[in-house]
């Protein structure tokens, strides 16, 4: 985050709430964080399944990723069935820490 001049956190009289046009300051950073989280959530969940399709050598989806064994599991199985849940918890932690800091910073400003 660059130290641009942040306007006070009161919305102007003409401000309209819009996810794609967050107001500068707290909300803009919050929405940026949400976008990053959505990307991390979507790419690892759905992107991985798409990659399974791309790398498959037969219609049931067997391929490089299903041949490789990790911690006793076929890689794709480990990734989806075990790692993704850990990833979700990690995303939740990161998001909370970030928003906690952001909230503190912007509340002091008032």
């Amino acid at each position, binding site marked *: 985050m660059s130290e641009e001049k942040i306007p006070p956190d009161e919305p102007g009289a003409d401000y*309209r*709430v*819009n996810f794609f046009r967050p107001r500068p300051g707290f909300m803009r950073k919050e929405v940026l964080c949400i976008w990053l989280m959505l990307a991390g959530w979507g790419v690892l969940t759905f992107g991985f399944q798409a990659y399974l*399709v791309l790398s498959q050598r037969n219609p*049931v989806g067997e391929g490089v990723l299903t041949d490789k064994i990790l911690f006793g599991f076929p890689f794709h199985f480990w990734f989806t069935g075990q790692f*993704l849940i850990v990833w979700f918890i990690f*995303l939740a932690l990161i998001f909370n820490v970030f928003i906690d800091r952001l*909230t503190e910073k912007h509340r002091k400003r008032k």
Partner: protein
Amino acid sequence: MSSSGLKFAPIFLLFAFLVFSLVIGLASRARRGDYYPTSARSIGRMGIGAAIASNWMSAASFLGIAGIFYLQGYFAMAYVIGWTGGYVLLLILMASQIRRFGKYTAPEFVEARYDSPVARLLSAVIAILISLIYCVAQYKGIALVFAWIFGLDYTSALLLGTAVAISYMVLSGALGVARNQQLHYLALILCFLVPLMFVAKALGYSWAVPQLGYGAALQELAKSNGSSLIAPWAHGSAYQWIALCFTLMVGTAGLPHVLSRFYTVPNMRDARWSVAWGILFIGLLYWSAPAYAAFAKIWQWRSGASLDPAASRQIADIIVIKAGEWAGISPWLIGALAVGAIIAAFSTVTGLLITGAGAFSYDIYYRLLNPGATEKNRMAVAKAATLVLAVVVVIVAANPPGLIAQITAVAFALAGNTLFPVFLLGIWWDRANKFGAIAGMIVGLAFTFAGLLLGDAVPLVGALLPPTSSALVGAPVVIAVMIVTSLLTPPPPEKIRRFLAEEVHHP
């Protein structure tokens, strides 16, 4: 595979649970007063997280996941991921903002945000439908476990289970049982995890952390049996997997009884952190459930007792219990599993029927049909509604349309197609108005039931909108419909738009 006749251990445990609930109810009756506010403050975020998990764990998690994994292997991972990843969506998009609205139910939120009794009515009807569908799955679980415990056929077990469930509900309702949700979570998760360790041990796998150790069982199965459990698209295409997973995720973020958790947490910060704990606590169960099914498969393969598809389908939803039976662990541990499933189903049913009946008696009867109704009057209506809902559920559950997890998924599809877009745009776009919300919910209902009713008749509908997975297409369409309709109609009142800008999106 003899499993007829009365089983002593689970009957004893079930009876002990009911007596225990009664005693707790009587004891807590004296000091009900300000139960929630004080305890909520003292239990902390971890405690609220456990409450989220205990609220969440139902027959679908306890029995359904393992059942679907037993039949469909990797395809079941869409359930596991959908039902955990949905909380991420809920957390980043809604959890803390919902808290700012200060409303207690989904219909109340809808009326406050969209300023429209019609939208409120629609959302109440949807909440009732979700409760009904969700309950059908729970009753199937209750009936199967009762059938197993008492050696009854499915229908008699359903009736017996219903009788016990309703007496439990009436008792706990009459006593105003202040259920300790942390204890509830702890009991449930132990009922699930401890027997799994013993099953792993009995079958000769590493028992300390069977969640990480069942990979060996999977590989053994793949070598002997082919890879139908492991191969990604052996039981459903990649589209079906992704559609299901997405549907369950947006459904989680739109389920009334999940959202209502966040109205009552002390503050936004706690709301957010409790979700992180909630995912961990729910994850503990979801890491473990497929292991039961894998162990059950291994036992079948070793003993040469493989079943034909129809018979497998019959027992899939109690495969958790079967795995315990087959591995030969102590009847007390199997009993704990069975009773854990019943407790999970009971508490879910109680919560859902109360939500459904409340939506009817308050949002429909009081707000719409009879605004002059007295408190006493409304209570009577709520009780009658509970009973009617329960009867409808039993009738549908007598002939369950699918596996527990599949029935539950339909409720998620409905929530994801209707309430999720209404909440999402309600929070993040102040221009969304009542016309948009009403149009969106109607289209969402149409999408959900198109997949359900027309799926067989129209192949394209069946392919694009599987009943369990209609929200991958449905939710984005509903969002688009809401945006277009809102833009074509007058904006919502300025007061609501200022509230969103100044209160909801304020640090």
